[in-house]
Every structure is written in structure tokens, then in C-alpha cells.
């Protein structure tokens, strides 16, 4: 574990050099403890794979005092302290090549029938390591090893929001139209980021996610309800 200054207003608390559930669990546990104890001078925190970025107000707490206060919390920073996580169900339409436009090529690349790729991807449970890059975009793992796949050689410039995609060991759902280097297998009609909603961002760090397989007709029905603001995602 080490403290790395990120300018005059932030410090990065780095737990390791790898992407693992264990390390990310410690990152989120430390964040939770900092929130619970309301450490003086802390403005906000951003968890990522293996580091917690802590933003502070140096007028209220010095760098050394902050690092000391965080160090004191470290022994308790295990997933045992975290509250139970939520399970969020995202309906996903894989079957329409208009939505899951990389499904066939990704399946070929993995030497799998497309149906088997869908079964493997749709059957897994995913953990949201953190939210980042664009508003509401979840960085998730939990994919079966059989469908780990190198990222696209040439990232596309525009990926539609809702695109359910895989790259490396990770799965993500694009939250706004953005560039992207992941293979798009399907699309969810649910909005992960909706600036006009009372709570614009759906997912939180630590959530578990399941994809519920739907056909195009169901996709269109849910989309119509989402657009009419008459759809509530299933959160358990």
C-alpha cells in the first residue's frame, strides 16, 4: 500500500498493481470507512480497480495528517465491513445484429457458436468494480474465462448508449455515446445515465449485475416504457 500525491487537492491510496476482486474489495471498504467516519477535510472519493482517490481540502487537513488518518483505517478495510450489495437486473437483447453488432465476429474470434457466447455471457453474474470514464459507466468483471477476448485493434469512434460489451476480462455497458474498444454483444434498453432523472446514475460501485435475455420485441416494449419514464429497473 502506498500514498501517491495527485496535486495539492488529492491523494491516491494505491493497494497493488493488479485487477482482482480482493484488492478492489479493499479499495471499496476503505472508501466506505472514510464515509462512515466522515474523516475531516475529505471532500469526495473515487474508487477504481486498485486505488482510492481521496480529494481533500488542505485548508482543513494537511497531507500527512490525512495519510495518518487513512493508515489507521487500513486494518479494518476488508469487504467484511461493506453493507450487502445490490443485485441489478439489466434486460439485454443479444439477438438483433442492429443492437449486438459485434456478436457474430466476437463469436468467430472465440471459435464459439454465437448462441454459446450469449449463453456464457448472459449466464454470469458481474461485479461493478467502479463507475468511471463517462457518467454512470460500470467497469465489471465476472465473465467466464472462455469468453475473455482482446480489445478491438481499432477502437470505434461512436458506441451507442446501452451497448453491452466485452474486452479483455471485463464487461461494460456504455452509458453515453462515446468512443470504445470493446466488442458489442447486445444492448439494454435501460439507461445507465439519464441527466433528466432524479437519480441520473443507475449503478454504484459494488453492485452485482445480471443480464436478463430479451428478444427485440421485448426490447422495444421496455424502451418505450423507459422513454415514457414508466420503467423501473429491477434492483434487489
Amino acid at each position, binding site marked *: 500500500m502506498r500514498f*501517491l*500525491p*495527485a*496535486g*495539492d*487537492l*488529492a491523494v*491516491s491510496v*494505491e493497494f497493488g*498493481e*493488479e*485487477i482482482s476482486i480482493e484488492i478492489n474489495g479493499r479499495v471499496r471498504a476503505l*472508501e466506505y470507512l472514510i464515509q462512515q467516519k466522515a474523516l475531516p477535510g475529505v*471532500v*469526495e*472519493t*473515487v*474508487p*477504481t*480497480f*486498485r*486505488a*482510492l*482517490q481521496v*480529494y481533500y481540502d*488542505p*485548508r482543513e487537513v*494537511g*497531507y500527512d495528517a490525512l495519510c495518518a488518518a487513512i493508515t489507521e483505517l487500513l486494518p479494518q478495510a476488508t469487504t467484511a465491513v461493506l453493507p450487502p450489495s445490490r443485485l441489478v437486473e439489466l434486460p439485454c437483447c443479444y439477438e438483433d445484429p442492429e443492437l449486438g453488432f459485434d456478436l457474430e465476429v466476437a463469436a468467430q474470434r472465440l471459435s464459439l457458436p454465437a448462441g454459446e457466447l450469449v449463453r456464457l455471457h448472459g449466464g454470469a453474474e458481474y461485479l461493478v468494480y*467502479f*463507475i*468511471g*470514464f*463517462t*457518467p*454512470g*459507466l460500470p*467497469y465489471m468483471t465476472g465473465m467466464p474465462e472462455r469468453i475473455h477476448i482482446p480489445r478491438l485493434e481499432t477502437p470505434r469512434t461512436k458506441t451507442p448508449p446501452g451497448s453491452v460489451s466485452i474486452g479483455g476480462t471485463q464487461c461494460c455497458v456504455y*452509458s*453515453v455515446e462515446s468512443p470504445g474498444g470493446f466488442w458489442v454483444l447486445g444492448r439494454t434498453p435501460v439507461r445507465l*445515465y439519464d*441527466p433528466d432523472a432524479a437519480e*441520473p*446514475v443507475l449503478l*454504484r*460501485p459494488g453492485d452485482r449485475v445480471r443480464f436478463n435475455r430479451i428478444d427485440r420485441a421485448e426490447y422495444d416494449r421496455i424502451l418505450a416504457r423507459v422513454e415514457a419514464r414508466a420503467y423501473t429497473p429491477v434492483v434487489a
Partner: protein
Amino acid sequence: MIRILDAGPQTTVQDGGRLGQLRYGIPPSGPVDRFAFVLANRLVGNPDGAAALECTLVGPRFEVEAACAVAVTGADMPLSVNGKDAPRWATLALKVGDVVKLGHARSGVRGYIAFAGGLDVPLVMGSRATYLRGRLGGVEGRALRKDDRLRLAPAAAPRPRRVERRALPDYGGEPTLRVVLGPQADRFTKEGLGALLGSSYEVLPQSDRMGARLRGPRIAHTRGHDIISDGIAVGSIQVPGDGQPIVLLVDRQSTGGYTKVATVCSFDIARIGQARPGQAVRFRAVTVDEAHRLLREWDASLEGVMREESA
């Protein structure tokens, strides 16, 4: 109420910023030049974080529909009221029908217009700041357009004041930006760090509120330019594979996977944000302790710089 007659290329509502949402991928936004923004608000008697306008390279033209006080600060944009020159960095009392115009910036990039009472747009996640990429806050999450009408919160007429000449920032020349090295300074060669701290870097036109792109001597990596994605602070100097630095600003992405060689201190964000395309900047390393001392000096530089004007 004011009515926009001509919005200029990018005029947005900004306030003190949207804090606490970075863990959901939503940046703070707020003004790029906090010094000019705070003084504009103080000149009209507002709290430091009241909602005001930030305009970019060319200011807006607007008509006053109810008497109000305004103050214009920041980039050197010629200011006129009803076609007659008016002072910047000073309280101006306006009456119904007055037309205010800010022209092309002669130095600096971002101008600020504060109104007594502050702009009354809806609070979104605790802030009125506009985040353009996320279509959030301000006026429908977008830059202002012709015929937009903005309401002002009620306020008493402020005492007219102006900022003393000695306190006015100089946006020209080749500013030196103070940086704290790291978090990934160890991923760069000695020559790479030497280039960063010993050369000047030119601001490129592709710069915006998300980041300032710079061009200059290569900042070379030791072993690759990718890291496991982690947090990006305001001022983070990200260096992708081409060795050219990008200084991330108030509308930055919350996380990223490029190495960050250093972080521009908060009190110098305004100076990079006011550097025009083609203008050069330099970097100087300071310790965290020095940075905090300089931050206190910056806080102090905002005090005692306004003088009462005899009306």
C-alpha cells in the same frame, strides 16, 4: 431577467461546482478560472459560488429586461453597454433595455459575467454548473443560444466596487505552472521528466473544458504508457504513447488508463485555462507542502483587492 441576443461560441452557466458525484463518473465542472469567477461574484455582492456565465474566446451580447448589477472579469474581452465602452473588473448598474456586449478576447480565453443575485437555473445534483458532455445542469445541459432568457435570483443593489489594477491577472506571456510530480512520475525516463520541467509546451486548439492539449518535447516513458485505470484529478498531466501532455480540467473524465506524470496545482488551473492556442506554458515542480503554502497565498490574493467606487 436577461435575454441572449448572441450567445458567442460557448457560453455556459457555471457555479462553484458539483461535488460528490465524481464516484459516479460526473465531474465537478464549475469555472476554469476560479480567481476571475470569484471576484466577479464578489463585485456584485454574491457568495463566491453563485451561478454566473463563463464565455469562451468571444463573449455574448444580451439585453437587460429588469434592472440589475453585473460584473465582467476574466479574459480581456472588450466590454460595451449600449455601444459605449464600459469597465471590466467593476460593478456596473444596468437598467431595463441596456444591451451589453463582450467582444473577442485580446488575451486570455475565458470571460465571466456575474449578476447580482446569481442566475436562477434549476439545481441538478446540488449544483447549477453546466456539464456539456453529460448534458447536465445550467440551461438544459447545453451552451446558451440566441433568445434564451435567464432569470436572476432577487438581490439588493451591491455597493459599486472595482478590483485594483495591481491585482489584475496577466493572461499573456509564457506562464509557469506549478506541479506536484506523480502519481506515476516513476513511469517516465529522467530525460522525459527533464523535458517536462525544462521546456516550453504550446497549447493546441483542440483544448476545451475537459482538457488542455499541449505540444512540445517528448515526455518519454520507461515501460509503456498504460496503467490500470485509476482516478484523474483536476490538473492531472496525462501522457499517452505519443509523449505529448494533456492537462485535465474541470469537465475531465473521472478515471483513465494513461500514465500521469504530474498534477498542475489547483491555483494554476486558471493560468493554463486562460492560455490561448499557440501560447506556451512551462512547468515547475513543487512539493505538496509548498503547494499548500502557495494555495494559502492564492486564497489571500483574493482578499483586500476591491476598492469602493464613489458613485
